[in-house]
């Protein structure tokens, strides 16, 4: 069961104002946990669970003759998780709120510290947008402590990175959501692995880089061999081949880190991209 949170009693509630520009939080806040989230979010609840979320506080603001504003404050337990869930949906413009943010069509999302915040106006109006941005700034300012993004993200070259599209995640269903690899979990991803996928654009061509850090070298080796066997058996120990679309897929393993380039522009491009990344990994 979800819990109604009395004003001032839930510590998460302290990050949100009770009123903003005439929009008031008249209903009681509701607190959800990883089991009760499905009472509130039908469809995407599992996404937040995939990032180990701890608690969600939902507060709804209303103002007569204006769209309802829904504030969802997720305590993700760590900045790594908050960053990850934020990167699940990167559509929109950065509006400079929190440590990174997106705004599109009445939805403002940002992360800061161990928190992920989603502010949504049920209808986008000029006034609602103004209030969303103001509310976002207030909440971000109430969260005092910043957090570090996952260290894996630092491995990606920034050159030609499309927008800021690095998705950080743990499991293969999220990988497939962003870039379908295989229905089976051939890369042995799970809550103990850290993975990141970046989307690059070079001219009109797109290519993708996937990094996975495993909890041990043995699992990394098994994943590497499983990927070769299932996805690119023709490549064998070379770890590189030209796929049906004329582009190049390459995979390399270094200790606990697996690097894969999908849709590399040429054989050398795929190899060099991997080299650049592995140079940083000791």
């Amino acid at each position, binding site marked *: 069961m979800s819990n109604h949170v009395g004003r001032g009693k839930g510590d998460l509630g302290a990050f949100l104002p009770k009123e903003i520009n005439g929009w008031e939080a008249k209903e009681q806040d509701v607190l959800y946990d990883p*089991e009760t989230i499905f009472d509130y979010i039908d*469809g*995407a*609840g599992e996404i937040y669970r995939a990032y180990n979320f701890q608690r969600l506080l939902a507060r709804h603001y209303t103002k007569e003759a204006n769209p309802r504003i829904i504030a969802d404050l997720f305590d993700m337990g760590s900045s790594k998780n908050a960053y990850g869930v934020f990167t699940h949906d990167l559509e929109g413009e950065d509006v400079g709120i929190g440590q990174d943010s997106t705004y599109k069509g009445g939805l403002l999302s940002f992360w800061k510290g161990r928190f992920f915040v989603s502010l949504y106006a049920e209808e986008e109006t000029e006034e609602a947008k103004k209030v969303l941005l103001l509310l976002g700034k207030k909440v971000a300012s109430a969260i005092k402590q910043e957090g570090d993004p996952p260290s894996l993200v630092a491995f990606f070259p920034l050159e030609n990175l499309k927008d800021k599209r690095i998705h950080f995640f743990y499991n293969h269903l999220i990988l497939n959501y962003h870039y379908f690899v295989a*229905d089976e979990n051939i890369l042995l991803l799970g809550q103990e692995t850290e993975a990141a996928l970046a989307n690059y654009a070079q001219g009109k061509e797109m290519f993708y880089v996937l990094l996975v850090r495993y909890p041990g070298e043995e699992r990394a080796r098994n994943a590497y061999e499983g990927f070769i066997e299932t996805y690119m058996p023709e490549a064998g120990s070379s770890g590189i081949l030209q796929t049906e679309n004329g582009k190049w897929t390459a995979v390399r393993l270094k200790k606990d880190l697996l690097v894969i380039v999908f849709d590399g522009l040429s054989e050398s491009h795929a190899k060099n991209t991997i080299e650049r990344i592995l140079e940083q990994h000791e």
Partner: protein
Amino acid sequence: MAEKLVTRRDFLRMAALSPIAGVFATGMKPMNGQISSGQPRVVLIRDQKALVSFKKPDPEVVQYMLDEAVIKLLDEKNPVDAWKRLVKASDIVGIKTNVMHYLPTTPEVEQAIKKRVLDVGVSEQNISIDDRGVRRNPVFQKATAIINARPARTHHWSGMGGCIKNHIMFVPRASAYHADSCADLAVLWKEFNLIERTKLNILVMLNPQFHTVGPHSYNDKYVWEYKGIIISQDPVAVDTVGLMIIEAKRREYFGKDLPMQTPAKHIRIADTKHNLGVSDPKKIKLIKLGWKEDILI
């Protein structure tokens, strides 16, 4: 026209969605003789006047649509006789609805169902409409007949929210069925004795959702006025038809074949692995009634 290039990613995706993937499955014995014994009938009915405004159905038109669909599905002459084939006066009836804030089953659909259940002779005290409270609801706890009604929508985790998925509220811990994008959802129909008790599946396509975005998986932008209702006694067949329409809408809207980010493989697996119903469109008898413009199937 050039043939579409099939890459290894396409191949792996198709393999996951094709009936072959279920060949190795266990439990091939049909779970429901009634459903699996023949070609399931699915009735799609549309009416241009089904909505008085966006997401607001016209109760009279909805009643008419449901009546016509049930009459056709069961080859009866009037709605009450048709409903008598589904429900007995002595039944305890649970109308399993869906209360998702942005896209619910709607009171209009719920009341249209309830009216006909009452017409059959079921007493009011033996009828309940519920979604998230079904496990605690005394009528649902004793229900001998269930009418399963929900809107069709794309779903962030399972690909599609349809009639198969609507019964998830009967389980104590929904997340236990979420593995592998809800692949084995059909199991819960067996585990919670829902196969025989579910007498009719109603997939509400008045305002289906064809794309999923945002923290609540919803945006009005990706909901359209299809003004349809699909019914069948086979939950897999009804979801299959609904999914085909949603996929067609996505092709129309996005101008290309854009696969759903999470494939709705639980529908195919409900057939090939769990024998809950039929997911092969060639084996489904689809009957179309009413308005045909932009029907997409």
